[in-house]
């Protein structure tokens, strides 16, 4: 039966996440971006909200069942506060969710409690590769069976906290499939870039390249399950975050337009601006519903969940670019100045086209 209303529990989750997003993430966002350092205490506060914990069953140290929908609702709120912060809090999820979704029983028992017990720890995953036509289903990083082991060779980019990570998941092509492999810190042949990568946005976070030269991993480190649900989990998470960033940009530019005077009226009283805002809000709401549908389809094991997640992200990428671009436009020259957050949101907005693999729900 159709319903577009979050449950009471989800509403509480949204409110909690939103309060944290505004009181904590939004407040440090600018300084974190400029100083290229996200304050760890703020990450830890977000971690303590227990979004990931709520997705992990008790048997593995958590206290719940995974719901992609609840995860998407939280992801939107966090990203509404600040995208770098949202991604930082969720970095351990990049390691935990694939294990939860595709790991063996033994892998779950061995790794999940370690990830979620205690403070936030930089577990991470390496999916993205430095190619314009990067395709998660057709990776250039290759794994080959060799005796009882696998030998992995390739190059990854955009790996958050790689230098600090205790363990890391690496995705590689095995036969014609994408598979996850657990790599311990300092595995021979594994080289993390000496310097942080430099991106147009997300400067608050440390990203690294990861080079794999004949890295040997035992059979036990291969996640036996399929990659598809992992990819779906990431597409929905990234799409939900795109909605969050777009909403932040929309609200900021709306409020600005209601304050700013032009020709004796508020600039929001001009149809040229008001119509832009109307279209932004409409687009955000439409894509949000599609993202919800995708998350709901995952939770309800619908056959077309994967395709819906793909469509949702496709729509979210364009929507986030359109909305953040217009937010800057509405602020005019002020939008171009880094004192206002809209230019950062515009840089983030462009990034969603390449962020698959940087968030999971």
């Amino acid at each position: 039966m159709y319903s577009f209303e979050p449950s009471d529990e989800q509403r509480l989750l949204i409110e909690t996440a939103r309060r944290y997003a505004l009181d904590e993430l939004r407040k440090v966002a600018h300084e974190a971006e400029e100083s290229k350092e996200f304050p760890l205490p703020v990450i830890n506060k977000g971690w303590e909200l227990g979004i990931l914990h709520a997705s992990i069953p008790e048997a593995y140290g958590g206290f719940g069942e995974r719901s992609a929908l609840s995860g998407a609702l939280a992801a939107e709120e966090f990203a509404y506060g600040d995208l770098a912060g949202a991604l930082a809090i969720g970095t351990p999820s990049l390691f935990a969710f694939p294990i939860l979704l595709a790991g063996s029983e033994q892998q779950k028992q061995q790794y999940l409690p370690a990830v979620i017990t205690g403070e936030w720890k930089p577990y991470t995953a390496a999916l993205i590769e430095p190619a314009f036509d990067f395709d998660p289903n057709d990776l250039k990083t290759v794994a080959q069976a060799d005796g009882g082991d696998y030998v992995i060779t390739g190059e990854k980019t955009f790996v958050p906290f790689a230098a600090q990570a205790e363990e890391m998941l690496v995705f590689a092509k095995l036969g014609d499939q994408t598979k996850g492999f657990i790599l311990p810190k300092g595995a021979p042949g594994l080289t993390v870039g000496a310097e942080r990568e430099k991106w147009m946005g997300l400067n608050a976070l440390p990203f690294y390249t990861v080079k794999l030269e004949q890295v040997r991993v035992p059979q036990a480190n291969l996640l036996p399950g399929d990659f598809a649900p992992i990819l779906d989990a990431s597409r929905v998470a990234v799409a939900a975050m795109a909605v969050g960033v777009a909403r932040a940009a929309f609200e900021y530019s709306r409020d600005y337009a209601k304050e700013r005077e032009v020709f004796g009226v508020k600039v929001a009283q001009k149809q040229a601006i008001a119509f832009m805002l109307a279209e932004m809000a409409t687009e955000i709401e439409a894509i949000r519903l599609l993202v919800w549908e995708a998350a709901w389809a995952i939770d309800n094991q619908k056959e077309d969940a994967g395709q819906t997640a793909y469509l949702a992200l496709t729509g979210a990428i364009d929507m986030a670019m359109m909305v953040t671009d217009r937010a800057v436009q509405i602020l005019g020259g002020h939008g171009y100045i880094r004192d206002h957050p809209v230019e950062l949101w515009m840089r983030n907005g462009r990034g969603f086209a390449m962020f698959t693999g940087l968030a999971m729900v």
Partner: protein
Amino acid sequence: MIDFEIPEKIAGIRNVIETVAVNMMRPVSRYYDEHEHEIPWDYINFMHTASKAMGGSSMAGGEPKKEGPRFTFQRLAVMVEMLSWGDAGMYLCTPGGMLGSAAVSATGTPEQKERFLARFRGEKPVFDAMCMTEPHCGSDTAAIRTTAMLDKETNEWVLNGEKIFVTAGHKALIDSEGFIVVWATIDPSAGRAGMRPFVIEAGTPGCQVTNMEHKLGIRASDTVSIVLQDCRVPFENILGSPEVVTEKATTGFKGAMATFDATRPLVAAQAIGLARATLELLKEMLAERGVTIRYGLPRQKLTAIEKDVIDMEVMLRSAWWLVLKAVWMMDNGKPNSLESSMAKVRAGDVVNRITQKAVEIMGPLGYSREYLLEKWFRDAKISDIYEGTGQINRLVVARQLLGYRSSELR
């Protein structure tokens, strides 16, 4: 609890309507497009019988009052979507309550609803229509000049004026014992505060259909001009409680707006049905020519056509949820004018972009009258015009988002 599952009962009706669309609409779609003003009686009679068998399922039929969740508008939206998937012009010929009934439902008293809507349950198919637009004003509804003056001696309203662009006006007044709802002013100096809705039944002297338009699309549906010359209706034909006559408030105008809250998502649903038909046919025609869409690939690996089709799919799916959310709010008694206008804005855009792109992609085949793509391209345009243009709906959305009155955002 967020849920995207179609309710079972609505799914059942959707299946029935799909059969109608496939068997009774698509085969004659082209015929009625090329024979403007001919009436598709086979379809009409079938729908009348079927809807009676189902206990009435239009705006006028209503739903038996019972406890629990209500589905009236969700069901209507799903039906309208499917009928428009069949043929948007023929859908507009569906008997048993359209926009006029919507106005009666939104603004009438229980007695009026019974009095005016009972006819839809009779032996013969009956139509209704709503008259708002006048030759000098469309979107600016408060500027209407049609007057309604009370003749105190006979206790009758006397209406004078001209209405244009009345959808199904001919069927409501001439081809059936239907009615029209006319928006008129009881005080021309009062602007919106003077606006009131009146019911004029078929056969009322002084009410005349004067013109039938020739249109770009939706040609199966008649669009007429109506002239009112000292047209007299009983006092009780003013919709709403008797106090509405004396109230200085903008009750009447608000009634018009409340009607739009209910009808805009349904017009949006029409757009979505047409857009879905187009996308499905486009994919079919492409597949026959060896082009299948490879979902899941990065943009960089897709062909231009694949990108277009995937974008269409995103637009269609996301816009449909906007529509459903708007009607779901309606059914759940939540104020929905923002969502209703959002749905109309988006669906109106989407159907035009999809139909225009589809004709472009199929090239000469898209442009050919051998296929329905070109017809749907023409049918689509109306969705962004009637029941509030895209621009008026943007204005409604913007005012709500910004908290502005109409004087603050003109």
